[in-house]
């Protein structure tokens, strides 16, 4: 009886945390699928969103969720600028170069955050953080519920944009063949910049959603990049269902192992699964290589 309760509890938490992983990975997957850039700085944008929400709460005294209003313009601008200043000059460069750029950006943003916000590890503790939403014996915090649902919503919005709008068609065209797209009159860099900014914005919104139950500090960016990396490899590029499934895989693995084993094992399981998957099915469970 207790066992059942523990397992269902672990599943509930794993599902909702996993959904936020999917959201955090969305932008990472967009950037990779469209521009072929492994952006190790992606997690830094999640961290940025978290600090934005923290400041909204601390300095403006508003609910951290209001930070979404600031996150959208700020993240878009930062994303656009980063793309224009860093990735445009480096476009067409090999994988290794993109790798350096991502790492350089990650180091820059981490220390910019250290400069601006200090090293303290802080979060936002609001009523929703500790309010339990339960069905029978199984429950999660309201903040986790909001984060999970909002993640699904955000992913759906982005999927709609990519698959159902004119802009999305351009994005997919660029992802498949930038040269052909250019010949069709698509402004490749502009489309890329918009897609990059979209990715950064989703990351920042992810950060806003996470802050009520996850503490932020400057080095946390790389941890998120790593999670996004794992989710992306499991999911494959260019797949929305894959992102969700892979996010859930990661979330549930973590919560189940944490319930039963010293949680260092969670990482072993995840990574071994990733290695096996890379060998057997390198394009990921659902991947198609491009968006």
């Amino acid at each position, binding site marked *: 009886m207790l066992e059942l309760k523990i397992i269902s509890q672990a599943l509930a938490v794993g599902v909702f945390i996993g959904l936020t992983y999917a959201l955090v990975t969305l932008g990472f997957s967009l950037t990779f699928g469209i521009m*072929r850039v492994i952006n190790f700085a992606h997690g830094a944008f999640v961290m940025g969103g978290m600090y934005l929400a923290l400041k909204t709460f601390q300095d403006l005294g508003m609910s951290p969720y209001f930070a979404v209003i600031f996150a959208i313009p700020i993240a878009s601008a930062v994303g656009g600028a980063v793309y224009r200043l*860093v990735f445009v*000059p*480096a476009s*067409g*460069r*090999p*994988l*290794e*170069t*993109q*790798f*350096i*750029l991502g*790492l*350089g*950006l*990650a*180091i*820059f*943003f*981490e*220390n*910019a955050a*250290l*400069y601006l916000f*200090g*090293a303290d590890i802080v979060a936002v503790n609001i009523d929703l953080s500790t309010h339990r939403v339960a069905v029978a014996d199984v429950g999660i915090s309201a903040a986790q519920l909001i984060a999970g649902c909002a993640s699904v919503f955000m992913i759906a919005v982005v999927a709609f944009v990519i698959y159902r709008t004119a802009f999305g068609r351009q994005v997919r065209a660029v992802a498949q063949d930038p040269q052909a797209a250019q010949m069709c009159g698509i402004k490749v860099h502009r489309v890329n910049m918009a897609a990059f900014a979209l990715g950064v914005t989703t990351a920042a919104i992810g950060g806003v959603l996470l802050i009520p139950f996850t503490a932020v500090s400057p080095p946390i960016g790389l941890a998120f990049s*790593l999670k996004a*990396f794992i989710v992306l*490899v499991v999911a494959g590029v260019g797949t929305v269902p894959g992102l969700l499934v892979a996010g859930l895989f990661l979330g549930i693995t973590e919560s189940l192992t944490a319930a039963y084993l*010293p949680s*260092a*094992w969670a*990482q*072993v399981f995840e*990574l*071994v699964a*990733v*290695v096996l998957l*890379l*060998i*057997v099915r*390198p*394009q990921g469970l659902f*991947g*198609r*290589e491009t968006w």
Partner: protein
Amino acid sequence: MIDKSQAPNSRAKWPGYLARKWQIGVAIFALVALPVVPYVNDPYWVTLISATLMAAYLNIVWNWAGGFAGLLSLGHAAFFGIGGYTAAVLLHQYDVNPWLGMVAGATVATVSGAAVALAAFRFKVRGFYFALLTFTAALVLPAMVKTSSFLGATEGIFLPLKDDVTQLQMFDRRFFFWTYYIMILVALVVTVAIDRSSLGRQLRAVKGDEDAAESLGVPAARLRVIIMSLSAGFTGLAGTVYTFQTLLAHTETTFDTGRFFLVIISTMIGGLGTVAGPLIGAFFLTGVRELIDKVPVSSQKAAAVSMMVYGLLLIGVGIMFPRGIVGMVEGVGGFIGSLPGRGRKHTATVSAAQYRSPIVAESAGIGFGRTKDDTPELVVTGLTKRFGGLLAVDDVSFKLYKGEIVVLIGPNGAGKSTILEICSGFLKPDAGVVTFKGKKISGQPPHKVNRMGIGRTFQKTRPFENLTILENVLVAAGLRSANTTEATAKAMECLRLVGLVPQPGPEALGSYLSTGQRKRLEIARVLATDAGILLVDEPFGGLDERSQGPLIDLLRYLRHTGCGIVLVEHKLSVVEAVADRVIALDSGRVIQEGTPQEVLQNREVIEAYLGGAGELVKPAPNRH
């Protein structure tokens, strides 16, 4: 079908010819100058330079895999850690002497490298996915170590401090300076050896275009396993030394992936796939770090700013030096060389006066000395290939005799190229058999098919863009020659046959050739494989009338030497000029076979092939 082989943006356009003398000069100068350091009576410098030497060493050995072979391994931290942990565990648990531990560590790392490479190649994990796989491997090992108390779990294994050279450590830090110095010496010698040997050329060919390399008989998978295990073993060696330098085997230090991020970064800064680049890159990065560190930090904010500057520097370097410092220096050199008055020719083609007719070349010993024979060489029986629902090749059978040119014609999608792909080993047939001299070749890997005597060219030319013209041919010639002199002579002769002259300098890189030159280069390359049968896919595509004559001559000459040729061609003038027999295909089936006259006048053929289009020369169809 998903093509796992194409790494995004990884098409290397960087010169592979960079193994220039000045680079070796730089390396030698550095190695002569460095021993001064221990006699500068400042332990700080000894320490700093020792650390830089270790970084340079790691760069050099990583570059074998990452630079020469194009294996972007993000997982060398795993090999470093395996080496370090092996020696530490042996000492800690079994009291094994660290020097033995060092050998053991390097050995285990070598085996691990081979295992990773084998697994990757067995399952065709290439390019970008190889980077992901190795990176994950580098993460999973420390995660596993953390769960094992035998391996020190999260606390690591702390080794005792001793002033004892037999324990691989001395209080005098010059000990580590000299250890790394010797290691670098060895690594550089190996690098130059690889770079100069045909192994290096083959590795670069594999990096440039794996399929093309395999088509010339290069055993790509085996080469990659060899280079990966070599690189891993040398990395593991450094891991053991470092562990005894710091006296701690710990998941956060011994398995630190960050160290290898810096290795990749500084190798790139120096110049990927070059001899001196890794060395230069390591010293450059140390210099940058020293400059930043020289500004004393008075607070956390100052420290943060210095790290921000560091991040920006990485970005700046990544953007500004795409080919690294070595590439930049080469670029400047190339620019000066191209200035007016320096008189360097930019053409790779011989003038008409210099062009020797292929027939003349026969006396030079190229060629095959084969005579016409009545037993068929290549026998294709009941070949069938499906792509999903599409029947690309449907029960095709034909024979090819020695000294015969058979031309496959047919509309787009008739299955011509697919047949060539199967005969050369790049595709496996769903049914049917291809034999060559009685031996089954269908289902064999491309490099083995080539070794058996079947050469091919590609419809869309695939020269190794990172190699010079001569090196392109040497890849093939080197595999079949006793020494470099012989290989070079042979390569030069093959080039002369097709009317190309190798030139020094970046203008001679494969990437700088025109379409016609690329086609000729491919033929020269395949000639150098001594293939008895050539599978030639639309060699006349994109050639103007003037260039067709010599090529027709060449094909006739090859036939004369006894070579059997399967030609896919659209131009009827060419077909009529060279074909002994013509096989017409439509929708994967043979509709007519016979002499050119018979086939070209056949109603069915005209209907299928010429009727609708009304054009003789069609735009290049897709390969599949």
